[in-house]
């Protein structure tokens, strides 16, 4: 696939130095400033090497439209989401490619309520961008950027107010953290101090480069696993570079997987805070449904994409949810992914139950989830999905995003990727054999159409 910028519901992404240039960032900042109108706009970034360059490009673009940039500096993305409404800003721009590798960067646009732009608002913004009639103010209407007082601590306070902090402090655990050389390297130690946790960490240097692959997948967490076992930690927390996703390693040094990370958070929210609907997206493990059902709570499925989960949660009045990639969302704190909120409720779970992470994990029914992808031309992909849909026409179909088919104890989901020229297939069953059989069946249907 050509190296082009990717403009979509999760913002504007690209590779710094090729498809993602300061010129592009400035034009999008101008479009955003024109779209939200003159007022303040909160701007923050992660630790990537290209961050300061893109930050300057965003500042100049915003100022030219008469917006006042509020410079939060290097902060977690969830901090920007929390602080945008609190500071009375018209919107916010997060400069981060989240879990993408270090050469990537992106702009993510936040509305005045502190959620990412909904797909409909994002398309309005992109219309402004494409029309290129940006507001330009004369010199006397230009506003100097300002630096708001500590943004991160008020965000942390929201989380501390939500959990039973005294309970956690009474039974402090030993935490190992992998901050991924990202925003966590600056802010996570201070966060954990609030809980009196004994604390060891890796990925603490801030050089603009990452010591590991930034996605907190089990196979990227070797260093953290060693840290847990060598220091006898009770739990390991792995963040991504902008601090929205979390993955957990148990006390034996075994990554429990991002799905189970979300499941533990869901369990604690439903158990100790509030019972209510749970929202996850279509490719999420059924272990979360199992947890929700054990508390008698319904589970709603959303399209893939963080903002889609957020919208569904607000629509259904969900109390907890998230993405299966380790993105825990607790709307009582704020309705977007937050690794800090996730850490806090999991620490609360440990304190309240007094159990080990491996024990808690064993209490959740496990399934085997397998992911696969098939390289394919776009036209073929569309036809292939139609064929899958017709094949399972008499089944329990969900067509809101690709094709999702539910069987009694297993399911699969197939859709066209937004980011790669592939069709993705996710299947889950009680055992690996069952999951692989599902994948094979769907793969056969798709390959038949595409003549691969």
């Amino acid at each position, binding site marked *: 696939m050509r190296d082009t910028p990717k403009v979509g519901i999760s913002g504007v992404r690209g*590779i*710094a*130095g*090729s498809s993602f*240039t*300061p*010129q592009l*960032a*400035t*034009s999008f900042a*101008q479009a955003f400033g024109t779209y939200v109108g003159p007022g303040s706009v909160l701007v923050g970034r992660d630790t*990537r*090497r*290209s961050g*300061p*360059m*893109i930050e*300057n*490009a965003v*500042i*100049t*673009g915003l*100022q*030219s439209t008469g917006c006042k940039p509020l410079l939060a500096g290097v902060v977690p993305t969830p901090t920007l989401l929390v602080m945008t409404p609190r500071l009375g800003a018209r919107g916010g721009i997060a400069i981060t490619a989240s879990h993408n590798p*270090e*050469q*990537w*960067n992106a702009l993510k646009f936040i509305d005045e309520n502190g959620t990412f732009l909904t797909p409909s608002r994002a398309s309005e913004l992109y219309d402004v961008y494409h029309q290129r009639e940006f507001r*330009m*103010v*004369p*010199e*006397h*209407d*230009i506003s*100097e*950027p300002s630096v708001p007082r500590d943004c991160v601590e008020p965000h942390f306070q929201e989380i501390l107010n939500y959990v039973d902090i005294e309970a956690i402090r009474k039974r402090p655990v030993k935490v190992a953290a992998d901050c991924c050389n990202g925003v966590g390297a600056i802010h996570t130690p201070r966060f954990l101090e609030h809980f009196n946790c004994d604390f060891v960490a890796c990925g603490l240097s801030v050089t*603009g*480069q990452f010591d590991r692959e930034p996605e907190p997948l089990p196979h990227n967490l070797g260093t953290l696993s060693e840290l847990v076992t060598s220091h006898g930690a009770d739990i390991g927390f792995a963040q991504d570079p902008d601090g929205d996703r979390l993955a957990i390693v148990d006390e034996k040094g075994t990554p429990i997987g991002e799905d189970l990370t979300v499941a533990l958070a869901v369990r604690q929210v439903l158990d100790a805070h509030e019972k209510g609907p749970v929202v996850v997206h279509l490719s999420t493990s059924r272990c979360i449904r199992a947890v929700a059902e054990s508390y008698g709570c319904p589970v709603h499925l959303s399209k893939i994409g963080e903002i889609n989960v957020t919208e569904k949660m607000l629509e259904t009045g969900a109390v907890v949810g998230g993405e299966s990639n380790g993105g825990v969302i607790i709307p009582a704190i704020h309705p977007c992914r937050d690794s800090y909120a996730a850490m806090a409720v999991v620490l609360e779970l440990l304190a309240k139950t007094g159990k080990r992470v491996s024990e808690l994990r064993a209490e959740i029914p496990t399934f085997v989830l397998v992911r696969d992808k098939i390289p394919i031309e776009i036209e073929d992909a569309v036809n292939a999905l139609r064929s899958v849909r017709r094949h399972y026409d008499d089944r329990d179909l969900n067509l809101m995003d690709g094709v999702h088919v539910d069987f009694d104890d297993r399911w699969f989901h197939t859709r066209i990727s937004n980011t790669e020229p592939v069709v993705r297939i996710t299947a889950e069953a009680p055992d690996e054999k069952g999951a692989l059989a599902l994948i094979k069946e769907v793969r056969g249907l798709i390959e038949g159409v595409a003549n691969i």
Partner: protein
Amino acid sequence: MKTLRLANFGMQGMVGEALTPEIVIDFAAAFGTFLNRETVLVGRDTRQSSRMLRSAVIAGLTSTGCRVLDFGVCPTPMLQFSAERYSAAGAVSISGGHNPMGWNAVQLISSTGAFIEPVGGDTVLDIYHGRDFERAAWNTIGVVEEVNDFTGPYFDALLEFVDTDAIRSADFSAVIDPVNGAGCRFVEPFSKRLGVKTIPINHEESGYLAHEPEPRPRNARQVANLMNVVPSNIGFVASSDMGRLSIVSELGETASEEYTFSIIANHVLGKQSGVVVTNCCTTRTIDEVASRHGSVVVKTRVGQAYILSAMADEQGVLGGEGNGSVAMPEFSRAFDAFLMMGLILEAMATCGARASELVAALPRYHMVKRKVSGESHRCYQAIDRLSRNETWSGGGTPSTVDGLRVDWEDGWVHLRASHTEPVVRVISESKSKDEAENRADEATRLLEHVL
């Protein structure tokens, strides 16, 4: 027509109309591409828009892999002075200079501190037009470092260059007006280190200029009024980039900015004769002062980059323009108001002369300036036609270095198409005021006829 002007020395225009962030980023990226991943200094004045343009310039430079040393608020001549000392390949100064509020400019500076040579500037423009910018890969994007301690070495060198002892023992008092521009925070260290009791006015970095930033008599009234109440030896008014200067005498009389260069030339050439470089529409006072001291005058096209370039070619000791700007290559390759103030104070101290006496010692000419409106693409043709009109220029010596200048025994007329407005500028100078007016009228009439 929009106000953007893009030329080989840099770009200027109205903020919010012509100077858009995209254009500035692209221009900085073109300069960065030209400099090939080396170190670049960035400085700015205090205007409301300068901080915004700084971000655009830094984004553009770092995207080409250049390392940026950010000087923050810094007078253009101090940035130029620092270029060699920080081993920079170039520098970018963001300042509207003498232009009114609402304008700004991005000036390109070479490794020597001079404005980029016209031929180098042409190459930058070619890169800008081709838009094929160097793009540093993600892990070679330029880094930005802040520099805060650049004033010490600058003032050390300045104190070394002028006769500091003489100035200190003269126990001068002065009023200095940096028009809320880039000079504000440097007026006090300058005065302290030279031992001059100074009342600074308009020295707040508010983002707003206190008056038109062109140092000339009508903008020097605040200084003159204050000096009527608080007697001082001299008053100084500078432009927002500290590149231009005019003076007010101890009598509270505002002196034309045309005198700044002549006063300094009269003093400097008295100590050391040599080549003087100026543009082709500067007062003939400078020719007389030079010949008084056995020095030669070389004339260039209008534009400071041309003067700095010719000074290097001719090994000139002094260069300047009638707008109140002076450079001395022995000190730096910059038009520098701090240097000008130092030299004028030195002249007063070493000659025991009052400011009014420095002005009175100069040969007097009368200068008349006119503008004739005309569509810009017709102005050059009109001037061309006049250059062939021998009844008009009869008896004079024509020169076409830039526009048309005709010199007679007792004066001269210069016609030049403006780069910033759709007008032809007419300057006429003569020993006699009537003659200057007559010649300006005649040239204006002929131009109007042709246009």
